[in-house]
């Protein structure tokens, strides 16, 4: 499939020139096209923030909901119609700050969705406050004496939660990122893809250059089935590994709910059997 299927004519993209978000948009389209996932069977779910505007920039179905709340509707959409490919995508503030509780409990559910996080270590849309992943000491208009709270480590937490697929990428390397993203999409179960994305307007510390200098790829000695090893890699914070940290195979939320055990049809194709209900009511006569 040609990724041009996702193109929207004459659109005004609200991102800053040079922003890492453009790269992610491009990578996403590429990965989808290579996997032959077209706009009609895809639903992009996002929250609010610069990253969260992404569904408006590729032609598809989308649910652009509330700040921090992409994961619950994404889980429900997939559960209501498992034939859809569902991607929940937002910024680091959205997913790990406002949405932190959903991050935890969505991993517990293990719906078959991909969770892409644009990790720019800053709140972009609201003009540069610290995000949960901001590095210690970073000064901002609110964190005037520098960030004092321990940065959130999404990979370590996802591994601690026994998430079914955990990866980190850097937008500057589109070739590898496309590959990892494709694996995340084809993986069955919840897949976290945290993508380092420089915010050229507000984060003057964690730049393209900085990410290049502070990351390296996991090599093939890394065993993605080893949870402890994955954890040890995830807590390396001076020089941060990229790649797939951890994978396991579990049944998905949709499967576990039992709703599709005897009936494969999505919920919207089913009808209430009124006689069954009448029978249930009548059963209460005794």
């Amino acid at each position: 499939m040609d990724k041009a299927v996702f193109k929207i004519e004459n659109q005004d993209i609200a991102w800053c020139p040079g922003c890492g978000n453009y790269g992610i948009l491009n990578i996403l389209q590429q990965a989808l096209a290579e996997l032959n996932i077209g706009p009609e069977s895809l639903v992009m779910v996002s929250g609010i923030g610069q990253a969260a505007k992404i569904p408006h920039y590729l032609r598809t179905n989308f649910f652009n909901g509330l700040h921090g709340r992409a994961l619950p509707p994404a889980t429900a959409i997939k559960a209501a119609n498992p034939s859809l490919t569902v991607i929940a995508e937002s910024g680091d503030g959205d997913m790990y700050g406002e949405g932190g509780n959903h991050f935890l409990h969505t991993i517990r559910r293990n719906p078959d969705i991909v969770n892409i996080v644009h990790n720019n270590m800053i709140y972009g849309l609201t003009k540069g406050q610290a995000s949960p992943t901001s590095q210690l000491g970073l000064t901002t208009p609110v964190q005037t004496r520098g960030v004092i709270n321990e940065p959130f480590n999404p990979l370590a937490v996802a591994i601690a939660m026994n998430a079914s697929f955990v990866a980190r990428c850097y937008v500057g390397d589109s070739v590898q990122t496309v590959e990892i993203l494709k694996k995340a999409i084809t993986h069955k179960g919840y897949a976290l893809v945290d993508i380092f994305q420089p915010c050229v307007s507000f984060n003057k510390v964690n730049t393209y250059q900085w990410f290049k200098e502070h990351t390296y790829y996991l090599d093939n000695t890394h065993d993605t089935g080893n949870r402890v090893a994955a954890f040890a890699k995830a807590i390396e914070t001076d020089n941060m590994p990229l790649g797939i940290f951890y994978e396991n195979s579990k049944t998905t939320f949709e499967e576990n709910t039992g709703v599709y055990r005897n009936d494969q049809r999505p919920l919207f194709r089913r009808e209430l059997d009124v006689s069954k209900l009448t029978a249930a009511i009548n059963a209460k006569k005794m």
Partner: protein
Amino acid sequence: MIPISHSPTEISLVLCGEAGQGIQTIETILTNVLKLHGYHIFATKEYMSRIRGGSNSTEICVASNRVASYVDRIDILIPLDKPAIDHLKHRISPKTIILGDQEQLATDLPIIDIPLTKIATALGNHIFTNIVAVSVLSGLFQIDLEMLQNYLASYFANKNREIVEKNLAAAHQGYQIAQELISSGSINIQIPQNPNIGPEIIINGADAVALGAIAGGCNFVASYPMSPSTGVFTYLAQYAPEFGILVEQAEDEISAINMGLGAWYAGARAMVTTSGGGFDLMTEGLSLAGITETPMVILLAQRPGPATGLPTRTEQGDLELALYSGHGEFPRIILTPGSLSEAFSLTQKAFRFADEFQVPVFIMADQYLLDSFYNVSESDLNPSPVHSCIIETSDNYQRYELTSDGISPRGIPGFGTGLVGLDSDEHDPAGHITEDPEMRIQMVDKRLKKLESIRNAVIPPEFSGSQDYQTLVIGWGSTYHTIKEAFAILNCKRAAFLHLKQVYPLPKELASYLKTADKTVIVENNATGQLAKLIKQETGVEIGHRILKYDGFPFSVEELANKLSKIL
């Protein structure tokens, strides 16, 4: 008021004990056997926010005519422990017959001594007390022992045989006590039976809402447990395998409503169940439903607030919350069932309204309505086929197409060739972000315009009483039966009762009902008269008299009759 010796048509039984003593079991068994025996029954519980200890009670009214409200009067009381008497002392009158373990209760009140504990202990366990109590009462109502024993056998079907046997023995001994009481002339209950009642259905409000939801096509429920809404959630979970309902306990209420919205977006018919504090957390999601025009059905099960308040008690204190919560301006619908039949039919209707108008629809209930049981006839719970408003999209589908009535055909992803975009920002017809002031105005107008269609579909209020009334009494939700019964007692010639089944938008006919009245009275189970305020705002009419109650308990028939009699 209605002494037992005066061949009454209604008797109120109250059983009281600590949490964990099986009040619920007593309630279930007694109501069922009494109904099978040909009595109308009504049962309501009051309980504390704890699992063991404290004092909980159930009132069971047994009658020849339909009965469906709480009365203060206790005709027969069975206190299962000593604190029970203190707990209910304000309701015990000289006419109250108290049956119980004299020794254990150690009270000055006259008691008909029945050796509940002794029998239970003899059977090997204190827990048989409640079956003995049930059986004494069944015996007093002259229920066939075999019927009771059959019922018990099926009730305890999944217990081991020894326990079943002991329960049956307990029943037998209870009956003997009852026979002695009758033959000694201590108690003589004579209420006419009605064989037509036997095949009726006993349910409570929670079950009626759950069944109504299924009738409305509900196939997705995401909730977080919270009294008094948990009952509905639990019933739906129980029906889930049979009806293919996806039931998920969310991590919090925020997740619950956002899941619900995702589900509707993808073509499911979703509901969330919660109470005030949990609903507060859903209000941003409510606002999202508003701007995205996503249907949503919300059971708002009220209990006394603010904050944790009285978690297991009842109140109607969240009407203004339902009316105004969620930031920004958008239409909504608020339904207020007053009976089990309405709990069923209005919940079913809520799904229809949500789907048709693409707005959030509230079912406002409260602990009293949800936890009360009575018998209803099959025709009171009458499901009709579900008609879904989803359309199959075509290529140039636009989710927010501007239409004359503000309602845009609703497509879903994966059904048709179009794409479906939903956006929490102000958006254009395709659902994309816009900041254009003209488009903003069009979209605000579009959303608000739906109120016109909604107003035309409002569920009319139920009028009863004198056509030629001077005084109009207004109530909403769970006060329905109590007001009706109070009216029946007062037998007032120039008064009428208007029960609102939908409070927002208010029914159009309300204004003319009000105009006709010389005197207006509102009955609300809250402290500030929230419906009265809405009525003033919408119609300009200041309600003259407000009968309010906010101690955590429902109005009783006597209390309300008493208060009304001073005004009427």
